[in-house]
């Protein structure tokens, strides 16, 4: 067997079901090995960025490690965006890239790029394989590092001559990584102290981040919240980690979070950060975030403790164990009857939720929020729907209006804010959950960045439904220019009509729909959701609709801008260089 076969035998030994990639010169031997047969399904993307996001979507939907394969040079650099995305959102990802032959490395050979050098700051670790015998060991280590501790991307770069070299294959049982020692248990004394603080709190809030999903700790989170009667807010990355129709779920914090969610954090006395990282889009002005609250900080990554907010009670370790222990201890403390009751606090949060609902005006063109509400109504109660999104206004509306009860049913690009993530991530999610209806809520700007992957969805039989919230603008940029640049719209106008998204879908062999009024909305969306094919719905919405509430960047939650009724007259749009 050669090194390329060893790559596939290693993936098989890791239980990899599917890899996403695109062949090229320096990875040809691996693709030749695919031709000889493998239990690993290969999904052919149209662009390596698509392959990378598919692998991310697969990882997010399944809880397993995503695998992306690309050739050297431009193939590898096209993976840089998904790698950076996986780094920011802690998505377990193994990227395998071909490299030019060993003796050509460093000579500016055709399609040569120092991809381990390029990706150094955005991978947990990377390997440039130096000897064919290393291949199984390196891949074993790569999967181990990607999935243990705080999840994230790794890269394995394999020169072509090593893929062709002969190897006596044996997959190792153990990894030898003396410097890789992620924490295995939270400290018992710290957990006990955390339980005491939580149980003694009068106004506790669980501020839940994406680490909870990565830790597969959603059941433990639910147990803790119910044992302590603790209100839960979930960040964008944690959306679906806690059932959103549950009475203890109080929305999503941050820049476009509802007022009641931000008020909850702003007024709490004990803030329990669960696998969250105090991102600036959540905190706004850091000093004004949960001012005066005692912080209990639970995380697998010691580097998150005190990074942005000082932790009063830090607990470092796997969240599944920590939350499980906390749930049991908080339950015991509550049963002892000597703790404060959060019921008055819960009533207040519920009042806030009723007092400050999400609002938008109904005048004028089809409202994007109405599209979301209709999608929500059409899918309510179903546990076989997985949402993905791009990045921008549509993403924030999706966060606000789509209610997700099942873990891993909302997949989005949080930290990096990668436009174009939605469509390929949906294809990856569909590969992970073939039974599910996978819906990408996308913006027209995002969709145009990766829509070539519709071909992948159609030809690989991974049908997804994309709802393009088409406002004809780079909507979030438009909103910022409107609000913070005196309405000088500069290079944001994409137009509603070019391209014709329904026709484009049909050109790819998918079903295309167009809707621009409320009357036809439910029928069109319903048809698209149930057609069983890859479908694109071009939902032409109000170009001027802005996403509220909004906490301007760097401002405090109390300085939130809210939707105001009656709606101000739409400003005539003077597009610059449109």
């Amino acid at each position, binding site marked *: 067997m050669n090194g390329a076969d060893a790559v596939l035998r290693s993936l098989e030994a890791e239980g990899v079901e599917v890899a996403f990639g695109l062949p090229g010169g320096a990875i040809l031997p691996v693709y030749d090995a695919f031709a000889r047969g493998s239990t690993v399904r290969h999904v052919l993307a149209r662009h390596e960025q698509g392959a990378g996001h598919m692998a991310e979507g697969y990882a997010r939907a399944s809880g397993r490690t995503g695998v992306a394969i690309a050739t050297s040079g431009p193939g590898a650099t096209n993976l840089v965006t998904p790698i950076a995305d996986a780094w920011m959102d802690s998505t377990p990802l193994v990227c395998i890239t071909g490299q030019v032959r060993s003796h050509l490395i460093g000579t500016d050979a055709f399609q040569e790029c120092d991809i381990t050098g390029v990706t*150094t700051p955005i991978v*947990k670790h990377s390997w*440039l394989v130096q000897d064919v015998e290393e291949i199984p060991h390196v891949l074993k280590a790569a999967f181990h590092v990607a999935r243990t501790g705080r999840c994230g991307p790794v890269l394995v770069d394999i020169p072509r001559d090593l893929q062709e070299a002969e190897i006596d294959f044996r997959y190792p049982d153990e990894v030898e*990584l*003396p*410097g*890789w020692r992620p924490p295995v248990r939270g400290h018992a004394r710290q957990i006990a102290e955390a339980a005491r603080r939580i149980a003694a709190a009068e106004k506790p809030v669980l501020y839940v981040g994406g680490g909870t999903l990565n830790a597969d700790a959603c059941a433990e989170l639910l147990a803790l919240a119910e044992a302590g009667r603790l209100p839960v807010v979930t960040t964008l990355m944690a959306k679906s980690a806690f059932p959103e129709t549950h009475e203890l779920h109080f929305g999503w914090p941050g820049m476009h979070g509802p007022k009641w969610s931000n008020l909850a954090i702003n007024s709490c006395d004990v803030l329990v950060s669960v696998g969250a990282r105090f991102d600036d889009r959540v905190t706004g002005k850091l000093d004004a975030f949960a001012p005066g609250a005692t912080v209990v900080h639970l995380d697998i*990554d*010691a*580097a998150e403790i005190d990074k942005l907010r000082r932790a009063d009670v830090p607990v470092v370790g796997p969240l599944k164990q920590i939350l499980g222990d906390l749930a049991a201890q908080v339950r015991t403390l509550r049963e002892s009857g000597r703790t404060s009751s959060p019921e008055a606090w819960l009533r207040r949060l519920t009042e806030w939720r009723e007092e400050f609902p999400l609002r938008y005006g109904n005048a004028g063109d089809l409202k994007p929020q109405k599209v979301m509400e209709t999608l929500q109504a059409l899918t309510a109660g179903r546990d076989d729907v997985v949402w993905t999104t791009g990045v921008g206004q549509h993403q924030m509306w999706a966060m606000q209006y789509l209610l997700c009860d099942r873990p891993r049913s909302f997949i989005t690009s949080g930290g990096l804010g990668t436009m174009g993530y939605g469509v390929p991530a949906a294809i990856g999610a569909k590969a992970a959950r073939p039974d599910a209806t996978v819906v990408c809520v996308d913006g027209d700007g995002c969709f145009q960045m990766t829509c070539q992957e519709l071909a992948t969805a159609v030809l690989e039989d991974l049908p997804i439904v994309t709802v393009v919230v088409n406002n004809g603008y780079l909507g979030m940029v438009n909103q910022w220019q409107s609000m913070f640049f005196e309405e000088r719209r500069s290079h944001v106008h994409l137009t509603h009509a070019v391209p014709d998204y329904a026709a484009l879908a049909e050109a790819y062999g998918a079903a295309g729909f167009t809707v621009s009024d409320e009357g036809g909305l439910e029928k069109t969306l319903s048809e698209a959701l149930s057609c069983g094919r890859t479908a694109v719905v071009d939902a032409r919405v109000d170009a001027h609709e802005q996403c509220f509430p909004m906490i301007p960047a760097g401002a405090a939650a109390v300085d939130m801008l809210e939707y105001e009724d009656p709606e101000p007259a739409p400003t005539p749009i003077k597009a610059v260089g449109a």
Partner: protein
Amino acid sequence: MIHTLSVLVENKPGALVRVCQLFARRGYNIESLAVGPTERHDVSSITLRVNCDKQPLEQIEKQMHKLVNVLRVRELEAGDAVERELALISIAAPPERRPELMALADVFNARVADVGPESMVFEVVGEPEHIDSFEELLRPHGIRELSRTGRIGLRRASVRRANRQRVLQ
């Protein structure tokens, strides 16, 4: 404030880059850097000096612990560590100046590593401050070229036990 870090890494390609990159991306300049083998053939020691506030330094140390190739990170506190550096200094030395230079070298325990018709090269080993002083006194004579290794350090045997708790983990 200047801090000295002693970092043990696996002797693997890229290990040094990954450590240094944590400083570079935050805009901190590494003032001195010494890398070399240790008592174990598969482990290298990096001693680096960086001018950095305490809070970002702690963050960088934690990030360093997460690097797969990093085995140990330890801050060497002034007074708790034995620190040495070596310098080679080429100095203008016409014959009439040599006795004075030799006398100076004698005070600093510097050796003559090389002599030419118009110049000579001193070799001096010691605590970095010791080398600073020697350099200052030589400067008026006309330093032609100077190369310092950057400091290396080991925690003093006498404080190891007391400080075991402070080893960052």
